[in-house]
């Protein structure tokens, strides 16, 4: 873990993730904000790799970048007249929002200063994917099945909500 490459990679990836997040916050054009979100999601996948969770990184790229982000961009294109009049980016609640976030930051910094964490365990040679699959189909079998039901429900619900009303 003391390898300088690891340190450089961490700071680079973390910087990209935070820059992407700031882009989502500040871009005026919502489409650009969506692209910035994709950048941030990729960087988070790289953070997973740095933590030795390659399978999760793959899932992150497939599900978030491949599906969720594309869906969001589709929704932006379907609902926005990007070239139309300039629209306000922010609600009127800027100051309360800033106060809430500041409060969260204070609490977080307080906890992070107080807490003492052990070092990260070295990344094992073998991939953890066997163990993940084992646990997913034994210890976590019930949540696994429930979540597949949830996905089915979300699928049907989305189709019902988004389709056009039939004329009768």
């Amino acid at each position, binding site marked *: 873990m003391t390898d300088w490459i690891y340190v450089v990679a961490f700071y680079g990836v973390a910087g990209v993730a935070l820059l992407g997040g700031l882009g989502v916050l500040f871009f005026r054009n919502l489409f650009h904000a969506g692209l910035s979100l994709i950048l941030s999601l990729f960087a988070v996948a790289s953070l997973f790799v740095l933590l030795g969770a390659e399978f999760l990184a793959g899932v992150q790229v497939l599900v978030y970048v491949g599906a969720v982000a594309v869906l969001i961009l589709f929704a932006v294109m379907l609902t926005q007249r990007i070239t139309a009049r300039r629209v306000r980016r922010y609600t009127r609640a800027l100051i309360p929002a800033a106060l809430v976030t500041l409060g969260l930051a204070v609490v977080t910094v307080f906890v992070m200063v107080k807490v003492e964490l052990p070092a990260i365990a070295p990344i094992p040679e073998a991939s953890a994917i066997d163990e993940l699959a084992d646990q997913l189909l034994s210890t976590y079998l019930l949540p696994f099945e429930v979540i597949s039901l949830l996905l089915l429900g979300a699928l049907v619900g989305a189709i019902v909500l988004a389709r*056009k009303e039939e004329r009768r």
Partner: protein
Amino acid sequence: MTITPLHFVGVSALLFGIGLLVVLTRRNAIGVLMGIELMLNAVNVQLVTFDRVYGPERLDGQLFSLFVITVAAAEAVVGLALILAVYRSRGTVAVDDLHELRG
């Protein structure tokens, strides 16, 4: 100079803060959804970090973030469908223009 778990926790906390600001201030409902995705990602980083801290024998953190990713996908799908339905009936997706239920 080494990277400790606190570094990862710090990045995650910053990302969560940015996401919270996006959720609270963006006027477009799709922007709000992007903020929620950012917050969920921050939590995932946190989960995987603590999964690593408590050793390779336990994979609860990674499994938990797998479930979080799945639920986030379902949430995004239903949320976007709702936004499309609102846009079709109201012609706007700005969250502060939708105030019929104001008391």
